[in-house]
């Protein structure tokens, strides 16, 4: 109890900091320097309609690279963590209630659709809301669906990791091409910028975002698969 009180006390202090931040906050009425630059230059420089996407993939591409690396790391570490447990190696002996016929069939029908949706989301990332991360999550949900209906389904770890690696490597390679053929690392203008609003525009952004989508999808899947393969302890 004393501990809770102390925590409360300190959180009160933190609350004071927060309230000072809140009270000191005056909403902008105009875009600030950076925001204005993006609003004014994104379209003509990069040719991406979704400015957020442009920022993510190009202007702050290094962050995104880091971000996919975070997932890559997480997937790898989760794999390491869960593959060294006591339960690993034994064959799965869990008795699971078999999913209903309807569900199985339904899922088999749904999975391709979901995958398609995911692909759509990341391919159109430079035009509409959504992109690699959202698309990747959607792809992973297809995998999730399969796992839910058939917990004993084995995915090829090798396949997942190859998809993950290849897409990551291409992402990097495209970034490096930017050094030689455009303004710098991760510059999307290695391909023509194209016409604002069309699918094949914004230089390498759609490709990169698709790669990110694939990679993220693979990484999410890998995590899910790893978790689902753990044993009861």
């Amino acid at each position, binding site marked *: 109890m004393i501990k*809770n009180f102390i925590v409360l006390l300190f*959180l009160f202090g933190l609350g004071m900091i927060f*309230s000072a931040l809140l009270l000191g906050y005056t909403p902008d009425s105009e875009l*600030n320097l950076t*925001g204005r630059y993006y609003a*004014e230059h994104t379209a003509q420089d990069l040719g991406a309609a979704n400015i*957020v996407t442009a920022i993510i993939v190009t202007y702050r591409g290094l962050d995104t690279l880091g971000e996919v690396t975070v997932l890559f790391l997480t997937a790898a570490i989760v794999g390491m963590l*869960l593959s060294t447990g006591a339960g690993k190696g034994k064959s799965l002996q869990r008795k699971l209630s078999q999913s209903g016929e309807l569900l199985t069939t339904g899922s088999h029908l749904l999975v391709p659709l979901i995958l398609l949706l995911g692909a759509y989301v990341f391919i159109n990332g430079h035009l509409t809301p959504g992109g690699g991360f959202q698309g990747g999550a959607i792809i992973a949900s297809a995998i999730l669906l399969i796992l839910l209906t058939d917990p004993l389904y084995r995915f090829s770890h090798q396949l997942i990791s190859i998809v993950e690696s290849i897409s990551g490597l291409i992402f990097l390679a495209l970034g490096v091409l930017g050094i030689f053929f455009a303004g710098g690392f991760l510059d999307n203008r290695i391909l023509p910028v194209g016409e*604002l609003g069309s699918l094949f525009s914004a230089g390498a952004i759609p490709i990169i975002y698709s790669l990110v989508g694939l990679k993220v999808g693979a990484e999410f899947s890998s995590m899910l698969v790893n978790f689902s393969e753990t044993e009861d*302890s």
Partner: protein
Amino acid sequence: MVTIAMLTGFILILMGLYGALTNHNILRMIVSFSVANTGVNIVLVAVGYIHGRTAPILNEAVPAAEAAARIIDPVPQALVLTAIVIGLGITTLMLAYAYKLYEMKGSLDISKFSELKW
């Protein structure tokens, strides 16, 4: 609007932290942290909001030439996207750790994992 969002965000952070710092159960701590992370995300997005403007996506309604006057600040959104993904990464890791810790001790009480000390 912004104020409400931001306030909500801050309250979520504080609540999340309270939960994380007072619950002994590791899973609950992780849950609490994810609440706090959501709060952070809300605050981040709220900071970029400008009253009466639209999402930073150019289309017929928002032509490139007027963008500067029509859209809200896209930067915080980009940051939040990254933050969410990173948050997921850490949460996942914590979950995996929680599982292994449970395997080790048969318990999820954080106070039982204090052999390393002093």
